């Protein structure tokens, strides 16, 4: 086999990807960058407007609102997700009966379409006939306005999203836990460490890469939130569940503001980058093995 032969075959095999990349990744990126300096309703001609879209974005209270909503979502979703997933993963990591069944049960909502989960939870959260409020009134507690209150609507969506996704993170943590050497626990046992001490000083540091990964995956998930508010609340009440992607979608396809929607896309991507960098700075630790 000579070098030339390898070159030709390599290019031929790589060609589909190069075409695909130029058409569906590079071109959209470049076009998007051009779009942010224009006003365009997709039907008429594109009008160059310079930095108008950016200055509009800085003063667009709905954009900041959608960003704030996403941060509220993340502030509830991420800790809840990590704690529940860690606890259940730890339980499933022990020798228990029907482990496979439990794992499969927690994983079930992960594979089911988000719209199905949202439609179910919309009924569970329903003010008068919902299961949650029925249970609350049965033990004579006041009903909770899950999706009606502007303060509670986003947290309610965050709880639902945690329920839907936690199975995936349980599985990821389980994989992480299985990589922790048993010898570390045995050494700690000899030193008389308690279960909690072992968890805090061995398990948590050893699965730090998995924690970071879960952190980043759920952050990306939070910034991609769309179908849940779209179906459940339409972004309401009073835009309290307007998510970033839902706002981009509305700007682009309700109002035909293509240039501004592209600007929003860039802004959201930039903020995702910053949030992820901050998270890595805060939580990434060196592992000594």
């Amino acid at each position, binding site marked *: 086999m000579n070098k030339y032969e390898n070159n030709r075959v390599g290019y031929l095999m790589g060609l589909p990807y190069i075409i695909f990349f130029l058409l569906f990744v590079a071109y959209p990126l470049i076009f998007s960058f051009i*779009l942010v300096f224009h006003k365009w309703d997709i039907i008429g001609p594109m009008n160059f407007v310079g930095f108008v879209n950016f200055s509009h974005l800085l003063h667009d209270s709905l954009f900041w609102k959608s960003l704030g909503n996403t941060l509220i979502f993340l502030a509830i979703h991420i800790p809840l997700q990590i704690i529940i997933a860690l606890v259940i993963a730890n339980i499933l990591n022990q020798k228990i009966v029907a482990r496979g069944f439990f794992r499969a049960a927690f994983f079930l909502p992960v594979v089911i379409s988000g*719209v199905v989960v949202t439609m179910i939870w919309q009924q569970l959260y329903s003010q008068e006939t919902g299961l949650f409020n029925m249970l609350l009134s049965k033990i004579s507690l006041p009903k909770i306005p899950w999706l009606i209150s502007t303060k509670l609507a986003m947290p309610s969506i965050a709880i639902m999203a945690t329920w839907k996704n936690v199975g995936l993170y349980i599985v990821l943590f389980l994989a992480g836990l299985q990589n922790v050497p048993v010898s570390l626990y045995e050494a700690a046992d000899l030193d008389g460490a308690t279960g909690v001490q072992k968890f805090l000083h061995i398990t948590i540091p050893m699965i730090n890469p998995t924690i970071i990964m879960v952190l980043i995956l759920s952050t990306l998930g939070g910034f991609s939130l769309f179908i849940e508010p779209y179906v459940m609340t339409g972004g309401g009440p009073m835009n309290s569940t307007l998510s970033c992607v839902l706002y981009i979608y509305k700007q682009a396809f309700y109002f035909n503001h293509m240039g501004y929607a592209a600007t929003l896309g860039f802004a959201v991507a930039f903020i995702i980058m910053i949030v992820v960098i901050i998270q890595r700075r805060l939580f990434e630790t060196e592992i000594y093995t």
Partner: protein
Amino acid sequence: MKKVLFYIVLSLVALSFIYPFIWMVSATLRPESELSNLSPISRNFSTSNYRSVLEKIPIGRAFLNSLFVSCSITLSVLVFASMIGYALARLKFIGRELIFMVILFTMMIPFQITLIPLYVLMVKFGWTDTYQALIVPGMISAFGILLFTQYFKAFPQSIIDAARMDGCSDLGILFRIVWPNSIPALVTVGIITFMNTWNDILWPLVVIRKQSIMTMPQMVTLFAVGGQAPQVGVQLASATMLAAPIVIVYSIFQRYFIASMARTGLKG
């Protein structure tokens, strides 16, 4: 005693992940007035909600659309991503590193940036309301390429050399020798791609407006938010029909689903 309590609590928690789906199915099979009952059993069994869905929306057609789109994309990703993965893992050619960097770069771009320009591209191609718009932008996945590249790197060189001696071309080596020995990687990429495509709603909502091309989750979504069916039972019946295929496939292959998802996570 402590052990029994432990299993009861764990079972209750697990039940809370399954019960909402059971409740959904039972809600579709009984009259609206019994919706808020906690118990899933009712005397007034009726399938009228399902008949109502079938009358109101062409959900069978949407199911076939989803099946067609998801199968096309999955097949295409398996063929193209494994081809490129093979080239990156086993062939030496100028520019290989560059292609690899480009793939990593692609994976890091949030879809929020490319959503709008991709839609504009579809409009320019005249592809809105066509199957091409649903299929072509998903035909190659950077994640698939990376997973195949990693997997193929561990493939024994001696087998490839032997096949080459026998005059086998690189494509022949890939599909006749590497593929049959890479079932786990194929299953992983296949399941993830199929599931992501099957459950995707945003992209179909953006490019498809014509009912005859709509995918199943899209149609159910629009049915739920569109106010076509004021009755909760009818809405949930459409949701049940959407969930059923995935639940059936999942209950048979759940081991592979979970293993696949765990593997993709490890990569990220």
